């Protein structure tokens, strides 16, 4: 791992122990300039992690706890009449000055609030009363949804889940990690010990670098063949969208960069494939007892990877 990222990870490990791989993936998503959907049970440290990330990288942190009566104007702001000047004055919402937004239990929000947030995520700007406000850079949304106790909630539609770069889950800590956590919390709050080891500007620079990594045509060809295969797979109602392919490429770049390389390999694509694509496909018959992950594994197994594909002469020519 890159030394600068290694530093960030070790800062984050002060508050969340034993979750190195998930932390790595979140940082990758941050580098790829995408948003994260955390599918998790309550109380595993989603909020703590988000706060810790914002402190370690020096990002402005906002949090929205979604309930059915959170309105779009709470997020994007609204205009208020000022009696003194007789004008409408714009009151910024939660999104306006946030670099890192934690949207807790996004599936509890009403659908119009959800769509307001998702639109802002996609466009990276807000439009209120005809005036457009650009959002801060970087802008990362970590949305969480609980898979238990979901009565009376509004699940994100399939089309909107597609806008998240990755879907991750933290999961419960193991024995060692939980013991370490309990021991740490005896005295001071470990969140206070997290230091800023990376500046916002440095992060923006890294994002630029990641975006311009070399991806050869053979890799793009692999991504295309993977996604095309998912679209014609007999078990799938809906395969991976073109946006999914785009995100796969971005995430693979971030993975390669984290690994200290300046080029993407087929292995990078395979490493991030599950996290990027598992929430993008729709099973035709969920009663079969076959999960999306199994279908994706099948794709990885069957679609010829670029290392092998090169033998057909493709790689030598390019």
């Amino acid at each position: 791992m890159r030394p600068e990222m290694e530093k960030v990870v070790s800062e984050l490990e002060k508050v969340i122990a034993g979750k190195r791989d998930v932390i790595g993936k979140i940082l990758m998503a941050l580098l790829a300039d995408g948003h994260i959907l955390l599918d998790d049970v309550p109380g595993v440290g989603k909020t703590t992690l988000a706060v810790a990330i914002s402190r370690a990288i020096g990002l402005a942190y906002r949090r929205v706890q979604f309930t059915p009566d959170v309105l779009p104007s709470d997020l994007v702001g609204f205009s208020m009449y000022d009696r003194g000047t007789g004008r409408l004055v714009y009151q910024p919402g939660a999104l306006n000055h946030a670099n890192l937004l934690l949207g807790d239990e996004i599936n509890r929000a009403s659908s119009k609030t959800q769509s307001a947030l998702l639109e802002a995520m996609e466009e990276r700007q807000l439009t209120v009363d005809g005036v457009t406000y650009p959002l801060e850079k970087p802008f990362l949304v970590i949305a969480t949804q609980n898979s238990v106790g979901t009565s009376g909630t509004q699940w994100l539609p399939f089309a909107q889940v597609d806008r998240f770069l990755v879907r991750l889950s933290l999961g419960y800590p193991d024995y060692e990690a939980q013991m370490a956590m309990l021991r740490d919390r005896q005295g001071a709050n470990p969140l206070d010990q997290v230091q800023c080891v990376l500046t916002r500007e440095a992060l923006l620079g890294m994002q630029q670098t990641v975006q311009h990594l070399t991806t050869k045509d053979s890799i793009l060809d692999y991504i295309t063949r993977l996604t095309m295969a998912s679209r014609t797979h007999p078990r799938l109602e809906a395969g991976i969208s073109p946006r999914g392919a785009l995100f796969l490429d971005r995430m693979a770049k971030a993975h390669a960069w984290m690994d200290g390389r300046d080029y993407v390999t087929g292995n990078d694509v395979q490493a991030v494939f599950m996290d990027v694509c598992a929430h993008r496909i729709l099973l035709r018959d969920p009663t079969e007892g076959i999960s999306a992950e199994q279908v994706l594994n099948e794709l990885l197994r069957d679609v010829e990877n670029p290392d092998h594909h090169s033998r057909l002469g493709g790689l030598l020519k390019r």
Partner: protein
Amino acid sequence: MKKRIAVYAVWAVLACLLYFFENHTDTRIILACTLFLPCLPAVRHSLFREDQRTRKAMFLPRTTRSMVSREEDEPGDLRAYLPGDPVSRIHWKLSAKRDTLLVRPQATSSGQEETVSDTAREDSCPAGQRMQRRGLLIIALSGLLALVLLLLLPAARLGMQGILNRLFDASEASNAYLYDHFPVPDTQPVWPAVLLLVVMVLALTAVSLLTGTRAPMLFLIFACTVLQIYLGIRLPAGTNILLFTGLLFLLMARPWKWQAARTILCSMAALALAVLLLWPGMDVTTEAASEHARDWLSQTFLQISGTVRETPEGMTETRHVHTQSLTEGDLPARSARTFRLSTLEEKQISMPHHVNYLRIALLLLLTVVLLVLPFLPFAMLNRHRKQASEHIASFQSADTREAILAIFQQVIAWLEATGNASGNLPYARWEADLALHLSPEYALRFAGCEKLFEEAAYSSHPIPEDYRQRLLNLLRETEQTLKARADWKQRLRLIYRECLWT
């Protein structure tokens, strides 16, 4: 399952009886198919091994299943079963899946519940396999149906006989043509032709063993069958069985496993049986016995019906003579053919004008194939050699990137030729398998050089020149490691590759 075996047994016994009493080509085919069908491993599996429940679920209409599936989309609506809940509200399917009882809060319509109870268990095999099995079962069933139709419909039987007759006719005609236009004296030695054939078979076998393709073997089997059926060349039965068995063995034995061997043995036994059954003249004893039995039966019948009569001795005798003439009567048949050829009218009958050209064309084609075939292996070898020399030339190419790719592909080719490849995994993840199969040290070296390959293949910055030497070292080490650990089959292949590549 027992029921199915019983049905099959009854069917087999009936086929045997049919064969015993009605001894001709049709019944032979029926019996051969009956015995051969369950020897196909997949059919055997679907007929005898499969769980009853799976088959039920398999044939359930698709709409019913998707109806059930739609219901499962809202698992949030379910809660655990508490004592006192009405049994009718239990969601049986999900309960079966999660191993605890789950209850719907609101009662749903009763129609759905009925369908749910039908597919209460998830079957254990994945759906792809199920589809395959379904296909095989359909094939087997349609085969059986065709056989039954063949038995029941006289028109179908006659048609079948017509086809066989035509085949026989065609081979007769081509034989006649050959005899007529290319007269060969009896004293002409046949060994050059036999030698040519033997060399061809050996060459094709060697090629298929070394390159690992099965196409030449398939071709040989096909050629042997066609030659025998169409041209009327008949080898002795024992030779034939040995030949086909050997070819089949070579065809199937490549990925060597006990299970595969068992399947092959079963198939061979079935094949031998089928050949024995279909071979005219091989079953004289059966025929004689069945005639005796028929005579005895008719005598008994007549005795019971009251009109006792002596069996005319001559009938059985004539049959025996007829049978014998089939088995031993090579000479009269041949002389009859010569005779037929000498009369003009007969020739016109056996070779209608419009078929003649087709037959001649077919014969020419066959001749060309026979002439070209012995050279095919050499052509293939030559092509491989050429490819190899081009590939080796690129090892020293001025473009380091291209050279590295070529060398690494060569390493992979070596590993694949000896069965050490890890399938469709990226090369970066081959290390574990290599450590297991070859040696941990080699695996480490491989992983190190694999990084260089990746850099050459996927990066755009210039590649240092010393990578080439490192990869060449890996190639040399690969050759040594593989040679040290190869068994005789792999060694044969390695020697072949070495001959090609140096």
